[in-house]
C-alpha cells in the first residue's frame, strides 16, 4: 500500500527536533499531529472508497434478499 511507507519516517523527524526549545517542540508536535491526522484520513478515505466501490451493490442485494417476502436465489439469477 502506497501510504504505509510514508508513516514510517515520522518518528525520525520528531526525534531530530529534540534539541530545540520547548515552544518550538510543541509547535512541531502539533504540526506533526496534524500531518499524521491528514495522512490517516486520506488513507481511510482511500480504503472506504474501495470498500464502497466493491461492496455497494452486494450490500443492496443482501439487504434486499433479507426483506420479507424473501426472494429465492433462483429468482435473483433467472432472467424471467
Amino acid at each position, binding site marked *: 500500500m502506497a501510504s504505509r511507507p510514508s508513516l514510517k519516517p515520522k518518528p525520525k523527524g520528531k526525534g531530530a527536533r529534540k534539541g530545540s526549545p520547548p515552544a518550538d517542540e510543541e509547535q512541531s508536535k502539533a504540526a506533526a499531529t496534524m500531518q499524521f491526522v491528514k495522512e490517516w484520513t486520506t488513507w481511510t478515505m482511500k480504503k472506504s*472508497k474501495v470498500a464502497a*466501490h466493491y461492496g*455497494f*451493490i452486494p450490500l*443492496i*442485494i443482501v*439487504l*434486499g434478499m433479507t*426483506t420479507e417476502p424473501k426472494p429465492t436465489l433462483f*429468482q435473483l439469477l433467472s432472467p424471467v
Partner: protein
Amino acid sequence: MGSAASAAAPPPPPPAQPQMAAPSYGLGLAGILPSKPEGDDKKEVEKVDYLNLPCPVPFEEIQREALMSLKPELFEGLRFDFTKGLNQKFSLSHSVFMGSLEVPSQSSETIKVPTAHYEFGANFLDPKLILVGRVMTDGRLNARVKCDLTDDLTLKINAQLTHEPHYSQGMFNFDYKGTDYRAQFQIGNNAFYGANYMQSVTPNLSMGTEIFWLGHQRKSGIGFASRYNTDKMVGTLQVASTGIVALSYVQKVSEKVSLASDFMYNHMSKDVTSSFGYDYMLRQCRLRGKIDSNGVVAAYLEERLNMGVNFLLSAELDHSKKNYKFGFGMTIGE
C-alpha cells in the same frame, strides 16, 4: 390510465385540486425520490395565514416542472432497460445501450463517440432508506443513497466511483425540512461546500438563496431563486454570481397538456438561450417536443404498449451544426 371511458371531452378537474407534480422517477430512475406535494391551494379567497404556510419545494427542484417538460433524456442509438422486481422493495435492473455519446468539445464541431455498454443495477426502496446502485462493465459505479435520519433530517449521498484514480466524485447532502422552510448543506469532493435555504413567503411564492465554495480552485458563489406557483402555472427566476440568469415558466393548459418555456443568460460567455416546449401526457403515451433559439428541434415519445412495456423514440435535429440524433428503445418493468 387504461380506463375504458370514451368521453369526447376530458373529465372536468376536481374542485379542490391538491398540487401534485408527476414523480421525478424518469425512465431509468433518473430522479432520486418521489416529489413531495406542494400544499393545498384553497379555491375560496381566504385570509392568508402567514404562520401556517406550506413547505416549499427543495432548492434544486424549483425548476422541476420546466425541466421535466423541456429536458427529456434524449439519446442516440438503441436503449433497452429491463427492471425486474423481486420484492416490494427490492429490484434488479439490466440496461443495454448501443449508440453514440456526445463528447463536449471546445471547437464548434461535435464529437461523437460510438459506445456500447451494459449496466447492472440494484434498487432497494424503503420509506426510510433508498439505495440505488448501477455498475457498468468498465467498473464505474453510480451510487445513490437517501436515508431519513429523523422525521425532518435527510441524508443523501450521490457518488460516481471509477477505477481510475482521481476521477471519482461524491457528494453528501444534509436536508432539513422545517414547517415552512428547507435548508440543505452539501459537502463534495475536491473540497466543495455548499448550502442553500428556501422559505415560503406566501402560499404561492417561495424564495431562497444558495452559496457554495470550491476549495481547490478557491472559487465561491452566491445565488438567489424564487418560485411562484399556482394550480395552473409555475414561474421561476434564478440568479447566480457565476453570471447566470435563468427564468422559466410552465403553464398547465389542461390535465393532459402543459406548455413550458425557459430563458437562460450567461454573462461570462454572453450566451443567451431560450426554448419553448410542450408536454402531452395522454393515456397511452407521453410526447414532449421542444424548439430552441439555437434552431434545435427535439422530440421524445414514450408509448405504452402494454402493462409495463414502454417503447421510446427520441429525435434531435440541429441543422446549423448538422447534428442529427435519432434513438429508439424499449423499457420493460416499472
